[in-house]
């Protein structure tokens, strides 16, 4: 996928993912402060607009950086900062890259996940977005082509999301709830899963 397609794919996925804003708001209301729906809606809108204004000939890495910047400032929050940092980290794996294939995508997601885990001082099992992003990155990496890799990533993310329900939140606002967090589904992990689904709905995964 080259820059023009990539931009289009991102924009279409984001128009898709905002349909889950209410679900994310409700989950974050239960475990946190309820702003995740707004973060996703405003963040998606800001990214779509920022990509519109990108000069012709922007590289995939530049595209990712533009996404990061727009998402970071739309609705400042944990998710905005962590995702933006993850996108910046991912973009570094795309140096001198013109065509995003499944391997590049896997590298990107892995780097983003590592960055989030490191910045968030988070491990898998802490009931955060990291729980969903890590297995998704692995599935992408193991994928034979774009379509099957994406399918596997979505399945892995979904499983991780469901698994967060029985976990106790160890990071962020949700950790304040202590035992009361058990039984509730992590909003950040859910957002990652919904984003992967939206990527599939929005585009032609084979184009990776």
């Amino acid at each position, binding site marked *: 996928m080259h820059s023009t397609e990539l931009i289009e794919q991102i924009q279409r996925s984001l128009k898709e993912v905002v349909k889950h804003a209410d679900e994310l708001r409700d989950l974050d209301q239960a475990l946190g402060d*309820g702003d995740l729906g707004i973060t996703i809606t405003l963040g998606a809108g800001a990214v779509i607009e920022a990509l519109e204004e990108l000069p012709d000939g922007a590289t995939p890495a530049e595209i990712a950086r533009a996404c990061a910047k727009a998402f*970071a*400032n739309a609705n*400042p929050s*944990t998710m905005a*900062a962590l995702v933006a940092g993850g996108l910046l980290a991912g973009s570094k794996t795309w140096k001198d890259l013109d065509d995003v294939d499944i391997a590049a995508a896997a590298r990107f997601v892995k780097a983003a996940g590592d960055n989030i885990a490191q910045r968030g001082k988070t491990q898998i099992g802490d009931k955060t977005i990291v729980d969903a992003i890590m297995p998704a990155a692995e599935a992408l990496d193991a994928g034979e082509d774009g379509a099957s890799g994406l399918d596997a990533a979505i399945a892995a993310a979904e499983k991780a999301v469901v698994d967060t329900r029985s976990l106790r939140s160890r990071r962020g606002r949700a950790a304040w709830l202590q035992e009361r967090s058990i039984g509730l589904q992590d909003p950040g992990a859910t957002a990652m899963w919904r984003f992967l689904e939206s990527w599939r709905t929005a585009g032609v995964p084979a184009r990776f």
Partner: protein
Amino acid sequence: MKKIINKPEDFVNEMIEGIILAHPDKLKNPGDDPRILVRADAPVAGKVGIVTGGGSGHLPLFKGYVGQGLCSGVAIGNVFSSPSSQQCFEATKAVDGGAGVLYLYGNYGGDVFNFDLAADLAELEDIETMTVLGRDDVASQPKENRQERRGVAGTLFAYKAAGAAAERGDTLEEVAAAAEDIVENTATMGIGLSPTILPTTGALSFDLPDGEMEIGIGIHGEPGIHRGPLETADAITDRLVDALVADLELADGDSVAVLVNGMGATPLEELYVMYRRVHQSLTSRGVSIGKNYVGEYATSLEMAGASISLLKLNDDRLALLEAPASSPFFQEV
């Protein structure tokens, strides 16, 4: 919703506008973004800048501690939410006098991630930054995990000390070390009696039956270590002081700074009733009080409750606390 506000979404910007209109000689917006405030004389060439930031709803925290001998600038988020990394970065640029910038703020996820991103941005523009986190809430984590504690009212001491160090011309490393030394020796614990009302939703920030108290509460209503029937002022104060004395391992002959902080709705009278007991309790252990602060220093909108902070003093720390400082909200003369 018992609030004197206009549109909830305008609350933060209108409040900042009021602050600038009231104190134009002391504070300014360095650029177009109203959410960034800096000292009127920023940047001060050759001196270390100090940037703080965090959610709104805690006045005088955080904006109140921007001034002479205090922080140089602040990035301001919505009520109880983080400012953006871009705002933290803009504040950084606006206060950088060439000697680097210290990030000094309370340990909360959203704030940390945004300031960390800002540090990355600053690095790209060759502005050196260091970070020290307020981590004084002993109820939020046991002592072995004290790097993970939340930052609450006791961060005042770190502002005061770092600001004094920067003002006297310390290097970035020295200012950061002074702040870190204070944080390492500060302990706070709070009690909540009633929740706050979030302006945007009208929802209560947490839920606490009438006649109950939450000991160890955080400044957004984070749960603490004990919930039970409301006790007397003396019993509450004893609980808090005992925990703080143990945490700081205070012993006969030690000296401390005391901060009795109101969360918003609790009358100043009650804070003095508590101070009285703090004094009795510390004195009876042979711990002397070298400096005291009683009032509203870090609030949570109209939450009823209070916190007590202790800072273990030595000559250096006391000198930094006693150095002159001046903001519209805090004065040391």
